[in-house]
């Protein structure tokens, strides 16, 4: 029983990182209807930049974290300017945007490979001081609490921002209908660039937390979370922020539960993708999605 509870706790922690990653993914999809496949590459670069700042730059993780997140936001601006803005007026912008995001993903990944090498690297020891608490047979580390705390903080901040702030409301207006938003005097291109900034910053933050949690970073670490992120946003409903958060948690829990029940990690991803497939067939708008998104 304690083992199961421990697994659930672990699932919650990794699920919050998935959620943070997926929130950025789904934000861009909600605004542009484009799947940004370079999001996973930004995730990787986020983790590696933070590591470089800590390891080579000698910063503490609490300074390196916001700095790396900011760098990732700037990467998002570059991404928008190079890969998405030139295609915006084309009739096939969904499809060509998907392709150019793949191209940018390849370029970012090769940059990660060139700048940081192909090896799996770790944060230096004592980057974060870890306390271990034991409660009712369950182990919880202070690192886990910090990770889940930061993830929840960022997700709550984003939700509040989208609901309250003027720029957040503008993002929602553009997501709803960019032509009307433009007529109402919203600077649509600026808002889209800003959306990319936020999305990539969150993706980078997820990368740093992921790197801290597993204490291993490599240029191809984005590959596994790329597909999981897709599964999460489908599960939660494309474009839905609360859906992405809940989807992330559900996905993290389903992963550890599959391992706990089958006793091996072999089928972990198969179960997740079967769930994804079933959701797409039975309820294509996702669990919390807007109905109109996928109707024929």
């Amino acid at each position: 029983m304690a083992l199961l509870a421990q697994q659930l706790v672990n699932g919650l922690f990794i699920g919050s990182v998935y959620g943070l990653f997926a929130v950025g993914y789904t934000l861009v999809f909600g605004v542009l209807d484009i799947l940004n496949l370079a999001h996973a590459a930004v995730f990787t670069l986020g983790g590696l930049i933070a590591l470089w700042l800590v390891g080579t730059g000698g910063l503490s993780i609490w300074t390196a974290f916001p700095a790396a997140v900011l760098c990732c936001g700037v990467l998002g601006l570059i991404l928008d300017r190079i890969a998405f803005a030139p295609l915006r007026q084309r009739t096939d912008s969904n499809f060509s945007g998907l392709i150019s995001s793949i191209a940018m993903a390849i370029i970012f990944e090769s940059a990660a490979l060139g700048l940081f090498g192909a090896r799996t690297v770790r944060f230096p020891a004592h980057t974060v001081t870890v306390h271990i608490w034991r409660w009712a047979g369950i182990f919880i580390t202070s690192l886990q609490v910090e990770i889940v705390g930061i993830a929840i903080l960022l997700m709550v901040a984003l939700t509040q921002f989208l609901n309250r702030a003027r720029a957040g409301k503008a993002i929602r207006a553009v997501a709803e209908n960019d032509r009307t938003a433009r007529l109402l005097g919203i600077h649509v291109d600026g808002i889209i660039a800003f959306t990319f900034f936020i999305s990539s910053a969150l993706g980078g933050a997820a990368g740093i937390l992921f790197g801290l949690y597993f204490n291993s970073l490599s240029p191809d670490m984005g590959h596994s979370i790329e597909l999981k992120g897709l599964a999460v946003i489908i599960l939660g409903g494309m474009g839905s922020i609360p859906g992405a958060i809940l989807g992330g948690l559900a996905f993290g829990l389903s992963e550890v539960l599959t391992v706990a029940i089958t006793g091996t990690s072999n089928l972990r991803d198969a179960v997740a993708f079967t769930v994804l497939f079933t959701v797409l067939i039975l309820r294509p708008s996702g669990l919390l999605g807007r109905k109109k998104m996928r109707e024929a």
Partner: protein
Amino acid sequence: MAALNQFFAIYGSLVNFIGINALLALSLYLTLSAGQLSLGNAAFAGIGGYTAGILTMKCGVPFLVSVAAGSLLAGVVGLVLGLPVLRLRGVFLAIATLAFGEVVRIVVLNLDITGGAQGLVGIPNITTTWGIYLALAVSGYAIARLRYSRVGWCFESIREDETAAETMGINTTYYKTLAFTLGAVLAGFTGALYAHLNYIITPGEFGFSVALDLLIYNIVGGIRVWYGPVLGAALLTALPEILRGTGLTAGPIRMAINGLILLLVILFLPNGLASLFERGGRGKPTAFGAAVSEEA
């Protein structure tokens, strides 16, 4: 003749790979020609390859029969998968087929009969370069003929506007499933040829990155004429060798150039490299994948 023999001694496997990749790219072209974005063709190739390989190796079935069986099974799976998933459009279809592909890969990874992660080892080497290029010539010819047949026009009208095609009395479900299944058969066939080429196949050779590569071949080459995907596959498969010839050895730079080519093509040649040879081919991009945004 001696020079030719020497060329083959050095570049024989590259020539074979170009042929295989061109065939796989054509299998996706069939599906794309009806406007359906599939990322499942790598998995179909895997199904065909593993079926044929197991039949030849473990049951002593003649080469041609096992290739036929591999193609057939891939086709049947394509049909069964196509019926439910082809209701989805654009990116959602891509994600559903991607989930299917991942499940296939993980299942193959965990079965005993497929050899698991080590792959299926010791498949007799029967496929010849002539065989591959004969298959390529036949399928290229058939696909070129298909384009101006009744079926070809139906595919094209669905790609341009599915709703309009349906209004015109075209049975869109039938033709979409036909395009998807034909693509699966050709992918399965190619997979079966590939299995008998290198003594060994592994699950990773039919994963997500291969599925993306097939899409990239099509985009870089162009999806309006049958030789587009062949051109794309030939160029991108040979690119590492060409770059080696120019003295570029470092891995990240090659990868970056790959991404850069893809980015430049999608930004400046929306109809691919093939449009350079076509009169007036550089005009309006194919109205492809536009369905999602219009509906949303």
